[in-house]
């Protein structure tokens, strides 16, 4: 198989080919490393590429196979890890100067499970600093570029992971979703992005942004691939108290059962209309029609408190982050600034944090510090938690009427780099549709549903399911994917501009 063909394979195909001996894990890994080398100057999806460790891991898989030992479900499948998961053999920076060069002494549970599943970790992907942002422009190490249009953002905060998958640098990538940080980049890069049920995948070793919201999840080019990765990282972890001690929803089986006949699908009335890009609404409308044509029973459902989700989120998430990020104080690890032998510990802390955090992180720390302050707590943090409860109740009521809810994943397609960089409010709106599921802690998936006519950029369909009902959204995602690929004559990504030396970089 030619190298370029190897990078076009899905994760499921790679796993099967490696297990069946049609191709070695080392060959697959080398093909992806070559691809990374070729396109990274244009895409900048990675902060760190671990070629040697990746090839060593791949050879270990090949040796196991040669020795007749059992292989993990992702054996030999290359994977890119968002730089927010700790790794003992690679730095973990969270896209921040304050952690530049920090090499953790322990692996995240996700990292550990992926290694055990046989995945080949290619490296660490770019992200908005500490996962705060929707474009990767908040990375201290420069933005990543959307493979569909290199002048545009790949979304964020897991933008590096989404760009890596969309640019065929890896068939799979891990992201984290706090306000939409997997689904939104998935949508604007034309790939599948999944936020599992909160607590379904362990947060141990995921550097915290907002503890009550952070959820690790997969990015992939197909729904089945996302399910395979979802399953590999899921299950109870005694190191994470908020991890769910319940059977993992049968997501892989659901992804193979692309049938929505009789399924009750609710269109969220509040997520659409004014402020949404017409092409996004058009593609979303077509996807809903498609579901109906596939036998789903579509109704409109109202979730009246969703309109308060964004403001509630921008109190809860910054509050938690103001506390979570306090530990970056120059005392034990990471950046230390101003320690000239005369400065006090307090001054060094202050100078380091001033130099080490970017503007968006500082903005949120300040917002959160304010919201938790004595005298303001009830009006801000307390009120936001009440809104969160109301949003949970909206979901509960909705899921009594329907099996899944759908909406556009994002109000617009990928925006140009720099366009919203100085307008935080505009940037925050990118997560308008994704935030409710984060606040409620349930499951949601974004699957490509076409290109917006006005800019030719991908649009995502969001499917939301009740907590621990993750399998339901995979059924819907797989059905939509199958029907649309049949209509298109292939995956949506095949219509993206080709990047790489053979085809010339850019559109």
């Amino acid at each position, binding site marked *: 198989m030619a190298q370029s063909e190897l990078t076009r394979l899905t994760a499921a195909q790679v796993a099967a080919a490696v297990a069946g001996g049609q191709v070695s894990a080392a060959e697959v890994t080398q093909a992806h490393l070559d691809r990374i080398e070729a396109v990274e100057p244009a895409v900048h999806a990675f902060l760190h590429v671990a070629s040697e460790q990746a090839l060593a891991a791949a050879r270990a898989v090949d040796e196991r196979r040669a020795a007749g030992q059992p292989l993990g479900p992702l054996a030999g499948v290359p994977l890119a890890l968002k730089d927010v*998961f*700790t790794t003992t053999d690679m730095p*973990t920076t*969270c896209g921040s100067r304050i*952690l530049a060069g*920090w090499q*953790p*002494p*322990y692996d*995240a549970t996700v990292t550990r499970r992926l290694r055990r599943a046989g995945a080949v970790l290619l490296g660490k992907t770019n992200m908005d600093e500490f996962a705060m942002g929707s474009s990767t422009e908040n990375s201290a190490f420069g933005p990543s570029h959307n493979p569909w249009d290199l002048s545009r953002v790949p979304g964020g905060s897991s933008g590096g992971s989404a760009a890596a998958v969309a640019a065929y640098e890896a068939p799979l990538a891990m992201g984290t979703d706090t306000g939409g940080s997997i689904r939104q980049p998935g949508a604007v890069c034309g790939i599948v992005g999944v936020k599992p049920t909160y607590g379904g995948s362990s*947060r*141990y*070793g*995921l*550097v*915290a942004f*907002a*503890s*009550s919201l952070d959820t690790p999840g997969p990015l992939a080019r197909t729904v089945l691939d996302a399910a395979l990765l979802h399953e590999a990282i899921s299950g109870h972890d*005694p*190191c*994470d*108290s*908020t991890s769910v001690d319940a059977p993992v929803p049968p997501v892989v089986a659901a992804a193979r059962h692309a049938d929505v006949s009789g399924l009750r699908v609710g269109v969220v009335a509040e997520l659409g209309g004014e402020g949404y890009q017409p092409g996004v609404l058009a593609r979303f409308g077509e996807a809903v029609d498609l579901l109906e044509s596939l036998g789903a029973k579509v109704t409109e459902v109202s979730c009246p408190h969703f309109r308060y989700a964004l403001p509630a989120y921008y109190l809860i998430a910054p*509050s*938690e982050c*103001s*506390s979570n990020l*306090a*530990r*970056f*104080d120059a*005392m*034990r*690890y990471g950046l230390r600034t101003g320690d000239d032998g005369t400065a*006090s*510990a*307090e001054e060094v*802390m202050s100078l380091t944090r001033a130099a080490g955090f970017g503007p968006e992180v500082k903005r949120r720390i300040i917002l959160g*510090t304010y919201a*938790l*302050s*004595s005298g303001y*707590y009830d009006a801000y*943090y307390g009120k936001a938690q009440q809104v969160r409860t109301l949003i949970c109740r909206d979901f509960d009521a909705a899921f009594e009427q329907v099996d899944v809810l759908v909406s556009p994943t994002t109000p617009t397609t990928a925006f140009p780099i720099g366009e919203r960089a100085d307008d935080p409010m505009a940037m925050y709106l990118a997560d308008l549709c994704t935030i409710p599921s984060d606040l409620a802690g349930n499951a949601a998936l974004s699957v490509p549903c076409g290109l917006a006519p006005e800019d030719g950029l991908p649009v995502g369909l969001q499917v939301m399911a009740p907590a621990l009902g993750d399998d339901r959204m995979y059924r819907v995602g797989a059905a939509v994917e199958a029907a649309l690929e049949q209509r298109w004559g292939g995956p949506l990504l095949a219509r993206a501009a080709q990047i790489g030396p053979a085809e010339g970089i850019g559109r």
Partner: protein
Amino acid sequence: MSAPAEKVLAYDDAVTRYEPVIGLETHVELGTATKMFCGCPTAFGAEPNTAVCPVCLGLPGSLPVTNRRAIEYTIRIGLALNCTIATWCRFARKNYFYPDMPKDFQISQYDEPLCTDGYLNVRVGDDLVRIGIERVHLEEDTGKSLHVGGATGRIHGADYSLVDYNRAGIPLVEVVTKPVPGTGPLAPEVARAYVTELRELLRSLGVSDVRMEEGSLRCDVNTSIGLPKAAWGTRTETKNVNSLRSVERAVRSEIQRQAAVLDGGGRVVQETRHFQEASGTTTSGRSKEEAQDYRYFPEPDLVPVAPPAAWVDELRAALPELPAARRVRLQAEWGLSDADMAALRNAGALDLVEQTVAAGTTPADARKWWLGELARRANEAGADLAALPVTPAQVARVTALVTAGTLNDKLARQVLDLVLAGEGEPDDIVAARGLAVVSDDGALAVAVDEAIAANPDIAAKIRDGKAAAAGALVGAVMKATRGQADAGRARELILERLS
């Protein structure tokens, strides 16, 4: 620190004019095998920064997991203090920056403590004082800072600071009393009696080694004074109070200092103060005006604690006999007066005597040895009685040897000395040193005959019927046998020969 000495009022004047109100916050390191939120050991005295892991170092990405045993211990403390146990409560983050706090927040409890609204009765003289317990909550300890250079041992003025994170994450229970008014001049003693009683209670529960000198029990003392029948005054919080005696002294000196401030027309500043062991006084720390806003909020990394009622009932049923009840029982069993009992308790000898009695000694003998000879030795060594290298079983064996006539009191003291010197078990020492009382007539007879021969005048007096003079000859026999003679038998032999 060479801060100018603050004026104080004579104690008697202070408590005549003003009515003190006290309150105590006691931190107790729990004796769990592992830390509050990770699996690191809690042992005291390990090399710095060896009992640490990503969780208690607060490394990015690490998460806490609650130690179930710490919850259990806290509930048991709450039950022993007659508290209500929460059916559902949460941990909260207390946010502030300090180098010895790895996450720059402390996982604690705020408005939802595990135990609330209890009491502890303490006896001061003939008075029984009920100390209300506001709350008992659970939190994690911080690391320990060592500030090197500078005069105060505090971070300001230090050349550099070292931090040991071994202590970071050790489970810490905080027991907070309600304000205690109405104790008048007894306030310092009440404070001390409370901490003493609490310490005994905690020890009886087996939840902590309650060593104030190692910091496993630490006290903050709140003190205010006001005019009788008037509103309470402004309180100060005195930290660094690390012995029972210091608790008493801290309250006393704060009452005197505050009285001088009020007498001088000033007002007491609400502030944190530091107890100075050397002078027995307090010095000003940070004032509440610069106080931190801790921005408490529910800890999102942990699920709520909801102890099932059946479990709490089980723990309640399994509580051991508590110190107050035990003292009543022992006093009755041993037939002691209140004063005897108090002396025993003040000497820290209650457990030792009980164990010695359990090993077969009479209560009177056990008391005699522990409060007499051994208390004197402990005093000489400047150590606690319990810290002497002698066990109740060894003391019991020595008293048994005395009862059996193998040892007399003098020999018994020698044997105990050798036990304390690490020479082994009493029986071995007796055998090795040949310390047993000489009571066989053959050996004694020789000594008696020699004594008679050497003291013809005394012998003559005895022959003349003055039996009381035999004492001098017994003394000579004892001297000749280096104290090993059975004095009673020697006297018999002397009188036999001279009758």
